[in-house]
């Protein structure tokens, strides 16, 4: 009886134990089968999350590795709702924020922007839950206004808004990585579970710009504009051998580091204007190339000619001039005769061969192509004016590329601004080598004895051409405003560089290419040739 009683109790205990285990087991199966996926999802949502890793925006350097645009990592500090005054005072003491006063935080509010890594670590060591640190990148432009119309700037969101920052935005930004990560109880990421989207690392860009040459160009440009009461201007320096752009200065400019900046356009690519006499050598090259004239052909020039009721005249009566002397003296009558020799069709085709009215090879957010008056029934006066640079527009960059043809023995090259660019450089023989040499000879005469004598340097030999244009306003030529231009190739005989300068908005006192642009060219070329290691004649 006693043994039976003992066994009965044992069986009862075992029975309840078995029952309990069975209930737990059944519950486990139920949870696993019925609620398994829901609970797994809920667990994952608590322990895992997706995060996007954005790459720091790539930098822009000049050809020597000098930074033109860089991003620095910082942290923005936010207070979350419910941050106490005691906690706020701790933050104040840590960051020396004495000018900030405590207010009750009802929503996420910014306390301080751009904390350094050291400040970030100090804040983290406070172990305050109601704080959030957000990683940010601040963009800096060490060269400021010297290069801002070219480099441009990016916004706070890291998106390029102007200049090369805009046109190379995808290269500089890369593509963010998206991944799923495991988090611990403190919501810190402890493990990467899977990569959801493979990104692409942001890349740096190296330009062909030399910041020392850029400085020389910008400095003298601003000085010349101020001294001559001009309003704007450009300088372009091309390396004819490497087919690279060494400097692109555009004034007025702006400080890209200032959030209140007022954007100014890059005149090098956007300001297409009537180039004036600067196109005369291009027309002469076309005429020589067509076999219509030779460089030393004698031309008889009256002091003025009347076409369709309009009078085209020179400063003085030249009588007889050789073709190269037409360039040297910048004779309007001579240029008109060359235009008529070529005829409208050949003249326009010739300008197009030199790259006018065509898009440029530089990847820039917006560029102007310029245009040429190519109406079917073009009048005689329009043909005449095309010969000395009216009735067509071109940007400073197009003019510079066109002149580089003479330095490159008649070969047209597209110039590049990005070093190691994967795009092939387009090249084409436009005129013969002998024609290119003839034109260089006539341009040398311009500087040595002609209208560009103020570009003549004691130290270096250069070839060049002046240009003066009256500004067209509301369909009329407003004679009180001029653009003075000068383009030169040098130092002779290597002809490594093509340098273009122009100053816009000049008044009626001093406005010609010879008196305003040529001296500016001389200053820039002297310093640049010296910087590049050329020494004296």
């Amino acid at each position: 009886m006693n043994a039976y009683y003992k066994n009965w109790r044992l069986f009862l205990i075992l029975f309840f134990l078995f029952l309990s285990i069975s209930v737990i087991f059944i519950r486990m199966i139920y949870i696993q089968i019925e609620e398994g996926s829901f609970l797994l999802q809920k667990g994952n949502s608590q322990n895992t999350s997706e995060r996007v890793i954005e790459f720091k925006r790539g930098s822009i350097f000049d050809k020597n590795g000098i930074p033109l645009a860089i991003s620095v990592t910082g942290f923005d500090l936010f207070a979350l709702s419910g941050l106490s005054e005691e906690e706020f005072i701790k933050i104040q003491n840590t960051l020396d924020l004495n000018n900030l006063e405590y207010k009750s935080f009802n929503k996420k509010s910014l306390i301080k922007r751009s904390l350094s890594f050291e400040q970030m670590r100090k804040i983290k060591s406070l172990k305050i839950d109601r704080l959030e640190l957000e990683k940010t990148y601040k963009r800096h432009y060490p060269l400021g206004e010297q290069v801002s119309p070219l480099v441009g700037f990016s916004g706070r969101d890291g998106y390029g808004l102007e200049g090369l920052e805009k046109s190379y935005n995808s290269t500089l930004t890369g593509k963010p990585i998206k991944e799923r990560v495991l988090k611990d109880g403190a919501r810190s990421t402890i493990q990467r579970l899977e990569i959801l989207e493979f990104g692409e690392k942001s890349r740096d860009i190296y330009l062909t710009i030399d910041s020392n040459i850029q400085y020389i160009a910008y400095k003298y440009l601003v000085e010349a504009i101020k001294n001559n009461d001009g309003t704007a201007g450009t300088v372009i320096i091309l390396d004819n051998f490497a087919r690279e752009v060494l400097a692109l200065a555009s004034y007025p400019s702006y400080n890209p580091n200032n959030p209140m900046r007022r954007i100014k356009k890059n005149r090098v690519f956007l300001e297409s204007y009537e180039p004036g006499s600067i196109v005369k050598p291009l027309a002469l090259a076309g005429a020589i190339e067509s076999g219509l004239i030779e460089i030393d052909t004698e031309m008889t020039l009256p002091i003025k000619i009347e076409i369709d009721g309009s009078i085209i005249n020179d400063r003085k009566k030249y009588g007889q001039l050789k073709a190269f002397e037409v360039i040297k003296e910048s004779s309007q009558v001579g240029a008109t005769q060359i235009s008529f020799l070529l005829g409208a069709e050949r003249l326009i085709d010739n300008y197009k061969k030199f790259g006018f009215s065509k898009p440029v090879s530089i990847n820039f957010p917006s560029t102007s192509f310029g245009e040429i008056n190519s109406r079917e029934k073009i009048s005689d006066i329009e043909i005449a004016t095309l010969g000395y640079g009216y009735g067509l527009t071109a940007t400073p960059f197009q003019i510079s590329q066109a002149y580089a043809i003479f330095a490159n023995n008649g070969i047209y090259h597209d110039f590049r601004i990005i070093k190691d660019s994967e795009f092939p450089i387009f090249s084409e023989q436009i005129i013969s080598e002998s024609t290119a040499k003839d034109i260089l000879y006539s341009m040398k005469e311009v500087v040595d004895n002609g209208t560009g004598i103020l570009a003549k340097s004691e130290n270096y030999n250069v070839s060049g051409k002046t240009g003066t244009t009256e500004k067209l306003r509301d369909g009329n030529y407003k004679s009180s405003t001029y653009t003075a231009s000068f383009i030169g190739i040098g130092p002779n005989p290597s002809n490594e560089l093509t340098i273009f300068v122009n100053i816009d908005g000049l008044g009626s006192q001093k406005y010609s290419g010879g008196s305003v642009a040529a001296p500016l060219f001389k200053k820039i070329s002297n310093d640049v040739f010296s910087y590049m290691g050329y020494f004296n004649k």
Partner: protein
Amino acid sequence: MKSYFLPMIFLQLVIITYLSFILVDVRWQIRSGFKIQENLNSQNQELQNLYYKLLTEEFFLNSPARIEKKAKEDLGMIKVRPETIK
């Protein structure tokens, strides 16, 4: 046959327990490695910041604008023309 049964079970339990410890250890190592990687990334960015600051400072100190200003204003230097060197 029966005499091997219990030792086999025991051996399996030991192996399972050992493997569980290994699993925990590997997970811990993965997480430690991840933390180290994150720290190194952060250090890399901090050093990059410093590098850019130094690069900019180097450029500022070497910049032709600053040198020209110092030479003219502080030292009273004048530009040497090539023809004056004989």
